[in-house]
């Protein structure tokens, strides 16, 4: 067990959310715009204080976790980032080692973790480039590398494939699927089909509440999709087909 939420809420955007998440596996959070998906992810990442109700990670209330310890366990990927300064891609990934390094210089272990992370995300080629010069998709892969360099037990991703082309979307989901064998991967997504095919569990949200929580086939059943998204669909050969 990793996250356990009981009647979790915020003053806006999230109400009475109760759910448990496993210690590993691929969980996706889906729902219409404004449903509270990013808000929920933010609470899990320890970025939204104060919250109502209870939410524990590994048995400890999120607001009671020490920040450095928490950062060694959980890595959060925002959907996009605005970078004002000329950090290189490699420097951005190296910042993922912050929870582990106290000294002035990075250690060999830090550099090794960064190298592995950049290889895994296929970003080694632009290590020396200015982060701001990268395309949206390259930036997303690089932010993932920075989070992997954190060597977390849990990855929280806010719409990780928004800017990726088809090839890289599939590559990202395959990668997350592989990582989910060891880690807990929680991703907010708009792509219901990729959620259906790749995830072990889906949380569907609507108006700040959890509307469905279970295996993909149940949580993303056409009846749920009709109710929550207002779109008529059916499942054919394991794929969701929408009524255009």
């Amino acid at each position, binding site marked *: 067990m990793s996250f356990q939420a009981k009647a979790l809420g915020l003053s806006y955007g999230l109400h009475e959310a109760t759910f448990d998440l496993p210690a590993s596996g691929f969980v996706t959070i889906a729902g219409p715009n404004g449903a509270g998906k990013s808000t929920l992810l933010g609470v899990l*990442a*320890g*970025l939204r204080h104060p919250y109502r109700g209870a939410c524990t990670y590994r048995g400890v209330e999120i607001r009671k976790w020490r*920040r*450095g310890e*928490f*950062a*060694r366990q*959980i*890595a*959060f990927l*925002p959907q996009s*980032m*605005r*970078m*004002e*300064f*000329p*950090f*290189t891609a490699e*420097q*951005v990934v190296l*910042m*993922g080692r*912050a*929870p582990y*390094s106290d000294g*002035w210089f990075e250690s060999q272990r830090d550099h090794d973790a960064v190298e592995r992370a950049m290889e895994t995300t296929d970003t080694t080629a632009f290590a020396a480039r*200015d982060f*701001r*010069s990268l395309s949206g998709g390259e930036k997303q892969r690089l932010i993932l590398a920075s989070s992997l360099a*954190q060597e977390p037990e849990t990855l929280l991703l806010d719409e990780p494939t928004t800017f990726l082309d088809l090839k890289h979307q599939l590559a990202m989901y395959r990668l997350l699927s592989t990582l989910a064998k060891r880690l807990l991967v929680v991703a907010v997504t708009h792509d219901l089909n990729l959620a259906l095919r790749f995830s072990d569990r889906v949380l569907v949200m609507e108006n700040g509440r959890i509307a469905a929580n279970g295996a993909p086939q149940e949580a993303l059943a056409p009846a749920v999709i009709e109710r929550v998204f207002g779109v008529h669909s059916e499942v054919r050969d394991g794929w969701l087909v929408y009524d255009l």
Partner: protein
Amino acid sequence: MTRSVWISLIIFLIVAVAAPLIGSSHIELRRALAGTSPDHEIFFYARLPRVLLALLAGAALSLTGVIFQCLLRDPLAEPYTLGISSGGSVGAVIAICFGLPAIGLLSLAGAGTALLIVLGIAFEGRRISSFTLLLAGVTMNSISLAIVLFLHSLASFSQSFAISRWLMGGLDAVAYSTLAWLAVAVIPVCMVVIAYSRQWNLLAVGEEWASSRGLSTTTYTVLGYIAGSFLTGIVTSLTGPIGFVGLIVPHALRLKLGADHRALMPCSFLLGAAFLAVCDALSRTVIAPTEIPVGVVTALVGGPFFIWLLRSKRRSLWL
């Protein structure tokens, strides 16, 4: 990284040694050290204190520029963005207008008051909003300027002259005891700020970024603002507002060295000191025996240099 710091240190030392020897009268170091007049007096009482003041002020202002640019995530921020020094100006102008003796102390008080007001406006619960801070600073600047203009309009002729001179900023010779206090105040604060360079790297990217990597963002943000405001307030109380140093030095260095604060901060400290000392030497010599106010020199030297730097790096800039 270490190489740039060494190069900066060498430049700093060259400037520190050469600057007191430059001036409208020619002097020699040997004669000055041997106690020969007038070299000795000119070196030790007229020039060296000014150079030391320039080195300390330049270092403090440049480093503050780096901190504020980081915390506000705005490469155009500088020590005066938060209105601290304009608060200092109000204090100084009040002292001049009411004939109070301790202009420096009142300037410091004005700077402190401005800091408290601006921080008070920007604190939301337990967090500081950078955006609100920026706006509060801009407002503080406007209000302070208005107060200064108002007082200036009521001032007598000699008071008006004193006010104008103060507002231009200058590096007049100060007593060694004052310099000692300045060094004791400035150097430890700068060292602490530079020591946290990796933390400033994280904050420079964003608050959520830093927070999700284990940094207590509010602690470091408040620390940064107080350190930067303290440095600005102290320097301004002695020199008046000297512009451009805190904007140009960090920005130019960032273009050359990149954004890593572990290189940027020590180099800004050292080269900011050197830059102001050079500008001071120019201000004393270009139209000797008349002095150009050093704030004019920093703008006239820094501005075109910066434009040249921007143009030469244009193709690789992603602004």
